């Protein structure tokens, strides 16, 4: 069977600097898949290339078996891939509702958009209460909720989240990860990039370790949690059972 998303031997460069040099992984429908690895390993670059913001030097990205790596970013969203970027990157001078409506920019079904706005407000009630407020005034956790909500507004088949726990308290991190688990239960496929490897692995059906621009290890979340190499490099001592 064709995997839902397949990344084959991806190489991406910023000028002369190769940020990604041989990343390969697959994501199956309905899974949560994590890319973990240290800062600068090439995780964010990989996501930015999948969503079309960057062009690969070589390699392939296949969505349902169709190559998408030559498509412009604004078309890739239409194929069902939503990307919530690192640092959240909300439209700070716009209201919560305007941010969410921009997430649904390519859709023309007003009734469906309104229904999905309500769905996001159900998921994150604080956003509903403050729908007329400017996004820039929100706390980190609230901004992360809005960033996820915005990405959901396109009704993506694949949701890519880049560092959703960055800068959040442990309680807020837990809440965000619970939400991600809930999205999987609703049938959304999630590709997660995280530095918080412990939390990410606990949640993931499959995970890949990216080191110096290459995928070096893979396994289920549980397998990698138990792997001594992963424990030593990314989890710190005494974290796993």
């Amino acid at each position: 069977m064709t995997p839902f998303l397949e990344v084959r031997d991806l190489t991406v460069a910023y000028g002369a600097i190769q940020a990604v040099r041989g990343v390969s992984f697959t994501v199956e429908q309905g899974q949560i898949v994590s890319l973990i690895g240290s800062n600068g390993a090439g995780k964010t670059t990989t996501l930015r290339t999948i969503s079309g913001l960057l062009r690969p030097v070589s390699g392939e990205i296949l969505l349902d078996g169709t190559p998408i790596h030559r498509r412009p970013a604004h078309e890739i969203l239409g194929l069902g891939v939503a990307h919530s970027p690192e640092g959240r990157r909300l439209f700070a001078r716009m209201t919560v509702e305007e941010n969410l409506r921009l997430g649904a920019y390519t859709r023309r079904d007003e009734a469906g958009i309104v229904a999905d706005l309500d769905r996001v407000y159900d998921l994150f009630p604080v956003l509903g209460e403050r729908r007329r407020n400017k996004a820039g005034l929100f706390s980190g956790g609230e901004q992360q909720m809005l960033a996820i909500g915005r990405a959901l507004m396109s009704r993506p088949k694949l949701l890519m989240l880049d560092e959703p726990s960055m800068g959040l308290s442990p309680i807020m991190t837990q809440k965000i990860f619970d939400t991600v688990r809930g999205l999987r239960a609703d049938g959304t496929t999630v590709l997660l990039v995280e530095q918080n490897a412990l939390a990410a692995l606990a949640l993931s059906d499959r995970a890949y370790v990216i080191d110096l621009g290459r995928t070096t290890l893979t396994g289920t979340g549980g397998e990698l949690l138990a792997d001594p190499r992963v424990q030593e490099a990314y989890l710190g001592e005494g974290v796993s059972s």
Partner: protein
Amino acid sequence: MGLLESFSTQLTQCFGSTSPPVFVFLQQIINGLVLGSLIGLIALGYTMVYGIIQLINFAHGEVFMVGAYGGLATFTYLLPTFAAREWYIALPLVLLGGALISVLVAVAMERFAYRPLRNAPRLAPLITALGVSVALQEAVRVFYPNATAALPFPNIFVPGSLSFSVGGGDIAIKYSGILLLVVSLVLAIALQIFVDGSRMGRAMRATAQDRDVARLMGINPDRVIVLTFVIGGALAGIGGVLYGGYLNNINIDMGFQTGIFAFTAAVLGGIGSIRGAVIGGLLIGLVKSLGGQCLPGGTAYDYVWIFVVLIVVLVFRPQGFFGETERVRA
């Protein structure tokens, strides 16, 4: 005559107690508002393009100039004589002709001059804009019949003036001036409503704030940028035609002069802001007409007062009246 003496003479003209010429003052306010609304209309083009691609499009004044010539050409070569006599037929057609030419020129300059430089250092498109400006002026000079000298522009609206007695004298405002003022303000308000409330307007603001993330929302930035040049071009073209109808006289330098004022208005109001461009334009119009009347040096010094105001405002409010302060990234 010494400077001080000149100063007091000029002030007396406006504020003197011996012969209080309130009507002179009011007349200059009206002249200033008409001129200022035009400057504001042109300033919208500067401010929108800057908001989206951070380019000071120095050729935008030329888009305004080309619109006036496009309107004149429509009137001279396309309009049947019976239509030219009736303003309600002539005006919409001449406006359409002028706006169309301006939009074509604006879209072409984006496509062929600025888009290839989208990722170049910012100085490159800036210099290109200056080059486009000179090229457009020269193109009109060479190709438009007799454009080496100023050309008469026909009346395309109700001729004559509205005049009334107030403050010890008569003041007058041309009907074509009222038209310029009203159309400019209506268009600016319509633009604000479009940008604030419509789906495309939201896409424009998103592209202005963060182009990469706008792409992630499925927005094609090229389309947004073209739309920005279309809107700016149409407003400038309409401005050019109305300005021609108001002064009954156009020349190829009009874009450069008005462009400088409009650019200043956009900076004064806070570049990127629609209401800022309009308020900046009105303020500059008022400073120019009142300064020329009441301050030493008369009209010879009106540029000076405009830039004095600009400098004073920027010292205390570098982002202009409605400009965004530095963006805070969470």
